[in-house]
């Protein structure tokens, strides 16, 4: 026991005395959360659009007012010819154009049917879809206002509700993903590098020629990073609640428990990587490549898993972040309890056990 404590103390000293590790450990998560929360958001604000109002009647004015009132658009009202609009798109000045036809209001009132032309710059498809859907929503909204007074019996009004994230804010979506990524990356990289460093510096040679058991080395390596990662988790949660306004709807305790489980899985993975690599660089590379890409691409937080080819869907099952992402979304955003995430929890726990076993088995008790 005393052996273990002194081992753990030594690991802490390594971390404290290495500014690089500290920056990695605490700077990285904060930068990530802030970057993803504020800068790299995929919501669109004040996109330049052009509204060409050929009608100049009540209905078109009311719709335009609504569009102008929205913070998504920065509206420029002109009477542009189709070719001028085309040119503006080509120059990249505008992202979208809304064109009201002549007789818009008359058509709407008499024929019960009027059309608006919405032209979007689809060279950036995400923005285009989003902007046009904003416009559609605004128009639908206007229609809904009209309908009580409208005589048409069969007007169908699509009613869209954005659940859990009614304002379509980016942050709630990113926080779980960033949490998964930060915890995984930091834990995996830190543990793998710290063990491999002992190999590289030759201290492992001395440790091997001592009565220290492999299990103790592994536990001693894991505990400091477990503690630091939980501190890290706290920082991320505080940041997301107070800086990004992402509430924790479910139980904080459950969230911390599930995150600890992910941290354990990550530590086990890091230990496993350390047993199969022999230089700090390759360990770093393996954890970056093995963690960063799958976590970003296959966890479902940037791209929905349902939309992936079947092969990738199958592969995504072995990405721990995928399960953690589901858990965090459920607990943090939807406020669900353990009953709805026990399956994901079990999978994560299984992964932790599997990788711990694998690294124990692979731990070399000799130099070869």
């Amino acid at each position, binding site marked *: 026991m005393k052996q273990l404590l002194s081992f753990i103390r030594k690991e802490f000293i390594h971390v404290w005395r290495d500014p690089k590790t500290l920056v990695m450990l605490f700077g990285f998560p904060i930068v990530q959360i802030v970057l993803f929360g504020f800068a790299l958001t995929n919501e669109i604000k004040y996109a330049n659009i052009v509204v060409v109002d050929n009608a100049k009647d009540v209905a078109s004015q009311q719709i335009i007012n609504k569009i102008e009132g929205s913070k998504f658009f920065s509206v420029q009202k002109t009477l542009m010819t189709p070719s001028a609009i085309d040119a503006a798109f080509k120059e990249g000045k505008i992202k979208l154009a809304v064109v009201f036809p002549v007789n818009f209001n008359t058509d709407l009132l008499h024929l019960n049917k009027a059309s608006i032309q919405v032209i979007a710059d689809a060279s950036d498809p995400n923005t285009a879809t989003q902007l046009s859907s904003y416009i559609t929503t605004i128009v639908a909204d206007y229609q809904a206002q009209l309908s009580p007074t409208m005589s048409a019996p069969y007007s169908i009004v699509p009613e869209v509700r954005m659940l859990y994230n009614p304002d379509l804010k980016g942050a709630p979506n990113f926080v779980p993903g960033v949490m998964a990524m930060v915890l995984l990356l930091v834990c995996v990289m830190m543990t793998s590098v710290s063990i491999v460093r002992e190999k590289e510096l030759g201290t492992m040679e001395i440790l091997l020629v*001592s009565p220290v058991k492999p299990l103790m080395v592994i536990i001693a390596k894991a505990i400091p990073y477990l503690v630091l990662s939980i501190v890290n988790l706290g920082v991320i949660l505080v940041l997301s609640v107070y800086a990004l306004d992402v509430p924790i709807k479910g139980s904080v305790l459950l969230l911390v428990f599930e995150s600890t489980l992910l941290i354990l899985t990550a530590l086990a993975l890091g230990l496993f990587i350390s047993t199969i690599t022999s230089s700090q660089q390759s360990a770093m590379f393996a954890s970056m490549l093995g963690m960063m890409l799958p976590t970003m691409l296959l966890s479902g937080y940037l791209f929905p898993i349902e939309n992936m080819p079947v092969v990738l869907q199958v592969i995504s099952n072995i990405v721990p972040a995928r399960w953690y992402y589901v858990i965090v979304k459920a607990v943090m955003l939807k406020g669900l309890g353990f009953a709805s995430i026990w399956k994901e929890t079990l999978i994560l726990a299984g992964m932790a056990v599997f990788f711990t076993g694998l690294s124990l088995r692979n731990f070399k008790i000799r130099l070869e």
Partner: protein
Amino acid sequence: MNAITLNNITKTYNKGTVLAVDDVSLTVEKGEIFGLIGPDGAGKSTIFRLLTTLLLPDKGTATVGGLDVVKDFKAIRGIVGYMPGKFSLYQDLTVEENLDFFATVFKTTIEENYHLIKDIYVQIEPFKDRRAGKLSGGMKQKLALCCALIHKPEVLFLDEPTTGVDVVSRREFWEMLKRLKQQGITIMVSTSYMDEATMCDRIGLILNGKVLSVASPEATIKAYPEQLYGVKANSIYHLLLDLRKYEGTINCYTFGEYLHLSITTNEEQVRKYLQEKGHTDVEFKAIEPTVEDCFIRLLKHEDEQGNSNKDK
């Protein structure tokens, strides 16, 4: 009982393509300082790693403290002290933290075995709050020795402990080893400095993975079969060329400011030969061979054997 035995130990790397240790057998008695002397790449470190259970031999058996290096590796790891050739302590830990850490790892305390390391530790104690990475070469080695000693090992393995250490520190280091020997600790030490060989009780000369001779330094020197001469003249370079051409020469090489020469003829004939060649200021004296001379002789012998094997 022998502290260390090796019986026909062979070790290869890279799936048998690189022969590191070639059929080595030797024994080290309890309480002696045994020196493995040989150039870099001779296989010294491999022997250390085999004995400290870090590597498995391909063939042969070896014991340390009566325990088998393969079967009883766990027990061996508790009774040996090992100081690798490369400085292998935690550079970001202070002197005291390093020592304390290794003491705890070996389930002991600094206080318990302080008497063992006292002589050495007092020298680095003024720097005990300094990080190990910031110590000088000699200090590092002293700290590493303290760490290897802190659990009172039965057998101490020191792999090139004096490489990169200044002459004064080297001498101090060997003084320490002699004191440790008095405590009953068996010490196996390797070095590529031939002058350190005389500090050992017995030495093994190792070359290309083979141990060529095992004896006390005195016996090793006594076993030198020919009379050795130190020769000097006004032009050492031409002297070397001429002596190598001389038919009675067995071996001739530079050694400090002299040439060391072994011959089948006698002094007079050589002097006459040199006079004919026009050398002036010839100094010619019989000398005692050193361990290095023994080593050079073995080296030449090996070379010739290797060549004649190739010729066959």
